[in-house]
C-alpha cells in the first residue's frame, strides 16, 4: 500500500525535474549575471569598451571642431587581431548609436571602405553628397598569458578618428583583462 503511494510520487518528481528543471532564463545584457569567458570577448566587454571610448570621444570635443555640425563620420577598417572570428559591428554599432544620440555625429552609409556603400540602395537614392569630416578606424588585439592552469587574456580595443587632413585628431584605447582557470566560465 505504502509503495503504491511512494512510486507514483517519485515518478511525478522525476517528470517534474526533467521537464521543468531547465536552467534557461533571461538575464540583462551586459549585467552582472552574464557569463564571463577568458577565451573570447563577451557582450559586456564590447559594451564596456564602447561606453568608455564614446565617453572619451565626446569629452575630447574633437567632433565639435567641424564647420557645420553634426560631424559626418565614415567607418573605415576595424582589424580583428584576436584568435576568434568576431563581428566588429558589436563594438562599432554601439559607438555609432551613441554618437548619433549625442547629436554630435552622424554616420554615412553611402560611403565606405573601397568605395563600397553599407547601404547600396541609399547610395542610389542619394541626391546631394557631403564629404565625411572624419574616418573611424581601429583594431582589436588579443594578448594571452598563462601560468599553470591559470589563463589570462587581455583584449585591447583601439580606435582612431582621422580628419580630412589625414591627422588622427582623437585616439582611444580600452583594455579589458580577464583571468580564469582552463575550461571555466564565471559570472
Amino acid at each position, binding site marked *: 500500500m505504502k509503495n503504491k503511494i511512494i512510486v507514483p510520487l517519485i515518478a511525478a518528481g522525476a517528470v517534474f525535474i526533467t521537464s521543468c528543471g531547465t536552467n534557461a532564463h533571461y538575464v540583462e*545584457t*551586459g*549585467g*552582472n549575471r552574464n557569463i564571463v569567458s577568458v577565451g573570447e570577448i563577451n557582450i*559586456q566587454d564590447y*559594451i*564596456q569598451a*564602447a*561606453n568608455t571610448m*564614446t*565617453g*572619451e570621444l*565626446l*569629452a575630447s*570635443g574633437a*567632433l*565639435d571642431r567641424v564647420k557645420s555640425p553634426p560631424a559626418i563620420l565614415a567607418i573605415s577598417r576595424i582589424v580583428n587581431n584576436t584568435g576568434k572570428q568576431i563581428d566588429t559591428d558589436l563594438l562599432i554599432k*554601439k*559607438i555609432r*548609436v*551613441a554618437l548619433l*544620440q*549625442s*547629436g*554630435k555625429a552622424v554616420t554615412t552609409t553611402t560611403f565606405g571602405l573601397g568605395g563600397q556603400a553599407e547601404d547600396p540602395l541609399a547610395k542610389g537614392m542619394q541626391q546631394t553628397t557631403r564629404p565625411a569630416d572624419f574616418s573611424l578606424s581601429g583594431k582589436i588585439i588579443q594578448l594571452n598569458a598563462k601560468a599553470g592552469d591559470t589563463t589570462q587574456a587581455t583584449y585591447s580595443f583601439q580606435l582612431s578618428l582621422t580628419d580630412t587632413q589625414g591627422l588622427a585628431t582623437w585616439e582611444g584605447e580600452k583594455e579589458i583583462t580577464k583571468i580564469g582557470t582552463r575550461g571555466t566560465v*564565471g*559570472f
Partner: protein
Amino acid sequence: MKIKIALMFAAALAVAGCHNSMNSVQNAQQVGQRTMISDSRVVSDTGLTRKVGVVGINTAMTPGGFLKVQVELLNQTRSLQTFNYRFEWFDANGMQINAPAGGAVAAEIDGGESKFINAVAPTPASKDFRLKLILGQ
C-alpha cells in the same frame, strides 16, 4: 629556538605575500578645485557599503556640453574588493536616458586604496545621474 625562527619566517612571508593594502601620497596644495556635490546619488548594496565607501562626488561640463561625473571611492578594508558599477542618466524632467553602451563595468580596488571612477553623459540633455555599486563575485 628553531620553532621560533620558523614561526617568524612564516609570519614574515604571510605579511609580504598576502598583504593587499595600498598606500598613496599626493601634493598637499591641490591646484585643481573640485565642484563637489552635496547630495548623494549613489545606490550601493549593503555588502559593499561596509567595505567600499563613497568619499565624494564632483561634476564638470565638457567643452561639448556633456555632464562629466567623478566619484571617489575608498576601500575601508585591508583586502582587495571587486565590484561592478553602472551610471544611469536622467534629463531635466527626470526621465531616464537610454544609453546604448551603458552596461555595468567591473572594477577592483586594493585594500585601503582610494580610487576614482568617472563617466561622461551620453547626451547634452543629461542633467542628472545615479551611480549603482554592486559587490563583485
